């Protein structure tokens, strides 16, 4: 789960990291009054779960409250990478002497949280990594010991030769690590970490991604979820324990298991089609899940055919068959349906389908090929 900049900064602040004060507003006039309260030049920043906000025109410097109103008006409602900007953060513009990057991410290979720090902050860290990799220092933390004081200081001295700044940066490392662990992050990032002309260290922008598996035990973090900034169909799917990502194609897919779901999409492509979505109904299926899956997929006007690919293990295929039948009874499908189904309780499932005039293939390739043909306007084999 992604957090907004302002939410990440709230968490940073609660761990002692200095960040500029700020107000989140949803209207241009509120932006104007927030800028007036700030009493100086401000930044107006789109709060949206998308990278590259700056390049997209979602971050603006404003000399006056009037300008803040004007810029907020342009930004609110703007679309960035398909997401509508609903909120902006109005925050005092800082006088910047230098910009650094500090991030922590979960590294699969090292199986540890890894710090990435660079004195070349403010820009894309991907660009720094590609062009001047020597400007990034990595440090893997052994969570059994936590971030040790000497490790934090090593990172501090990598950023600043001045001992006072290095020590202040070491403190920020400790605080960011505490925030990362304390909120169950898979990523926590300050970019840029700035030294102001007054010599103060400030987190000017912040980003946090939470491990979805942490949300059950961290209701206070789950409460930060902003569904208004997510794709409504994906929110709907999540609320029904479905893993769903919308794509551009026209073959709607309903599969059990993420690996098989991806393999199914790949096979659609292999046979010349385009998948309309990734949809994993998960391990322990029940008919209700299938009903919801069909409802969500059929809401996508692009979908020309619906393809089920179910390999029953924990998933009982009769549950899936019952779900299909129930969904169709409640609201008949307007597009053709291709079902591939095998495994646990397969015989019962086939019987249920047959009783309702549906048939199913046991072969994945056969089903996918047929679905692609139907999506192109062909007839069922």
């Amino acid at each position, binding site marked *: 789960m992604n957090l907004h900049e302002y939410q990440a900064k709230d968490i940073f602040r609660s761990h002692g990291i200095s960040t500029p004060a700020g107000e989140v507003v949803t209207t241009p006039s509120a932006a104007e009054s927030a800028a007036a309260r700030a009493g100086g030049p401000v930044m107006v920043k789109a709060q949206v779960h998308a*990278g590259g906000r700056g390049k997209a025109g979602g971050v603006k410097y404003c000399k006056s409250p009037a300008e803040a109103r004007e810029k907020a008006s342009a930004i609110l409602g703007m679309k960035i990478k398909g997401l509508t900007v609903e909120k902006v953060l109005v925050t005092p513009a800082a006088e910047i002497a230098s910009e650094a990057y500090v*991030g922590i*991410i*979960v*590294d*699969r*290979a090292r*199986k*540890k*949280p*890894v710090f*990435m720090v660079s004195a070349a902050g403010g820009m894309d*860290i*991907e660009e720094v*990594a590609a062009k001047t990799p020597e400007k*990034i220092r*990595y440090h893997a933390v*052994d*969570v*059994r010991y936590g971030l040790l004081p000497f490790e934090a200081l090593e990172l501090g001295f990598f950023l600043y030769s001045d001992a006072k700044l290095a020590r202040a940066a070491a403190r920020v490392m400790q605080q960011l690590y505490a925030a990362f*662990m304390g909120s*169950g992050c*898979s*990523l926590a990032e300050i970019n840029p970490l700035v030294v102001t002309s007054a010599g103060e260290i400030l987190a000017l922008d912040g980003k946090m*991604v939470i*491990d979805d*598996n*942490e949300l*059950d*035990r961290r209701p206070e973090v789950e409460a930060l979820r902003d569904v208004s900034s997510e794709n409504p169909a994906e929110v709907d799917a999540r609320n029904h324990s479905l893993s769903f*990502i919308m*794509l551009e194609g026209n073959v709607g897919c309903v*599969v*059990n*298991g*993420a*690996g*098989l779901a*991806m*393999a199914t*999409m*790949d*096979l*659609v*492509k*292999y046979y010349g089609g385009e*998948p309309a979505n*990734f949809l994993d109904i998960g*391990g*322990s299926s029940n008919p209700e899940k299938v009903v919801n899956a069909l409802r969500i997929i059929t809401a996508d006007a692009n979908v020309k055919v619906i393809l089920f690919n179910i*390999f*029953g*293990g*924990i*998933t009982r295929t009769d549950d899936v068959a019952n779900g299909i039948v129930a969904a169709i009874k409640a609201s008949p499908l307007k597009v053709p349906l291709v079902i591939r189904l*095998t*495994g*646990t309780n397969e015989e019962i499932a086939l019987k249920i389908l047959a009783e309702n005039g549906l048939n199913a293939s046991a072969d*994945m*390739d056969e089903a996918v090929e047929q679905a692609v043909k139907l999506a192109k306007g062909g007839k069922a084999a």
Partner: protein
Amino acid sequence: MSVFIGKDTTLVVQGITGRDGSFHARQMMEYGTRVVAGVTPGKGGQQFDGVVPIFNTVRQAVEQTGANTSVIYVPPAFAADAIMEAAAAGVKVVVCITEGVPVLDMMRVYPFVKEHGARLIGPNCPGLISPGEAKVGIIPGRICARGPVGVVSRSGTLTYEVVYQLTRAGIGQTTCVGIGGDPINGTNFIDCLEAFERDPDTHAVALMGEIGGTDEQEAAEYVRTRMKKPVVGFIAGQTAPPGRRMGHAGAIISGSAGTAAEKIEAFEKCGIGIARRPIDFVALIRERLK
């Protein structure tokens, strides 16, 4: 022969009285796995299905039954503790089926398990099966058959798909291992390849990878430099939208974006046969078994 589990496997089921645990305990027993103990704190002294003694702790179960393998069906909040309990009790192979274990938990679990000399498979995995010998986890027994192919995979149902295709074509397996798809897991491709290379009955290996990370690239390098047995590979997720979970920072760290194209290229470079579709495994493996 087989790898990790086999005829000598004596199994303790953690969470044996739960919904999933009891269902799969029965499935495993039916398959012929020697389920010697169950653990549910507070139900120590009872019997599961009248035949399997239940203990309050894994330590008691191991002390009294000599179980050498454990399988875990407990809710995600308790999975990390259950894994560490099994490792501390002296269990040699710990298989964690539980899905949804927080990755920060796994960062503590991983070194703990290593320090205790145990092998962890999973979490978030379907477990493993050595056809005709033992099944630990949830892989359906009837889709498997005994034979010369080692199977290792990051996914669950996709594994079933491939194993099913192989079995239908008359190609059996020594052991099928689902290592799980989580960012941090106990056993990786290389661990399995190493075991298959050493197993005298395994003559070819089917490997199913996914997008994300660099495990497949490292496995490919391992195949090139250290393996004599043929390997056929598949990567799921060629059409998946990139960066929906980890974003770019992960890619920087690993020095790779973890795309399917990259992984397939690594396979090709290292002499791994490429299955474009799951069904392709049948022909490619058959060719290599000749």
